[in-house]
């Protein structure tokens, strides 16, 4: 029992010795500040975040530009298709009218008594 008490006192003594206050001496604070200033790790984190933000902005801008280009391309293609459809429509109606005219002329000629014409309505 007394042996345990002795061990505890010894441990306590060693701890007090190890944890005693030590004066860091003059210039401790400037040294710490200088070391903090020189530490590169502190600057890395904000720089990396800035790069990520830049890439995100670039990606977003690229997406917007791509979307605008695609919309423009779609619009141009739609315009071309519409103009072509309009041209074909006019052409189709023109051909239709032309052939109706052909029939009309034949009927008209027949009506006027020209020979070698046959028509039935």
């Amino acid at each position, binding site marked *: 029992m007394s042996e345990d008490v002795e061990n505890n006192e010894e441990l306590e003594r060693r701890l007090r010795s190890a944890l005693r206050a030590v004066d860091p001496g003059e210039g401790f604070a400037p040294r710490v500040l200088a070391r903090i200033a020189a530490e590169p790790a502190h600057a890395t984190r904000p720089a990396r975040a800035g790069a990520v933000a830049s890439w995100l902005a670039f990606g977003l801008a690229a997406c917007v530009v791509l979307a605008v280009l695609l919309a423009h391309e779609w619009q141009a293609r739609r315009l071309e*298709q*519409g*103009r072509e*459809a*309009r041209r*074909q*429509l*006019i*052409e*189709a*109606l*023109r*051909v*239709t*009218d*032309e*052939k*109706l*005219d*052909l*029939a*009309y*002329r*034949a*009927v*008209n*000629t*027949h009506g006027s008594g*020209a*020979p*070698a*014409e*046959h*028509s*039935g*309505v």
Partner: protein
Amino acid sequence: MKVSYSKWRWLLAPVAALTASAALAAPAALLNLPDFDALAGKATESVNISLDTSLLGLAAGFLDSSKPEDQATRELIAGLKGIYVRSFTFDEDFAYPAAQVELVRKQLAAPGWQRLVQTISTRDRTRVDIYVSVDRGIANGLAIIASEPRQFTIVNIVGSIDLAKLHRLEGKLGVPKLDLPAEGKDGKPEK
């Protein structure tokens, strides 16, 4: 001097008669037109137009309502579901196979199709057949087969088309106006 627009009366009257006729079995107003791919190579000019409902709608969107002829065209195609044209011009007489034309003609023998007009000119060697498709008393399609020595044309219009409106567009679609006699007040040609 008033230019006559009544020249389609000869065609409109039978259309009206057919429209008022008894109901017939529903026909397929859309014809199955051959490709005529082989002919396109031999023809000096070829027209191959297939405008279905969506393309007609697209085309209508590109018609300028502020222009009278565009507005008239828009009204003309309002009831249409499709326009299909095959036309080939050759530099020699009858270079096209009559069999393929007959193939289309056979489709027009189906119930519902009525031949309105057939004109055969032995002098000009031309033949024009005009058919109308009638469904329940309503004309819902038109087909024209025109055979000329150096050209043959097939037109298939699905839907109801106003021929009088089409005629009013004459001269505005690139078709030169015919020198028709002007009508007097009594409807007879002026001298």
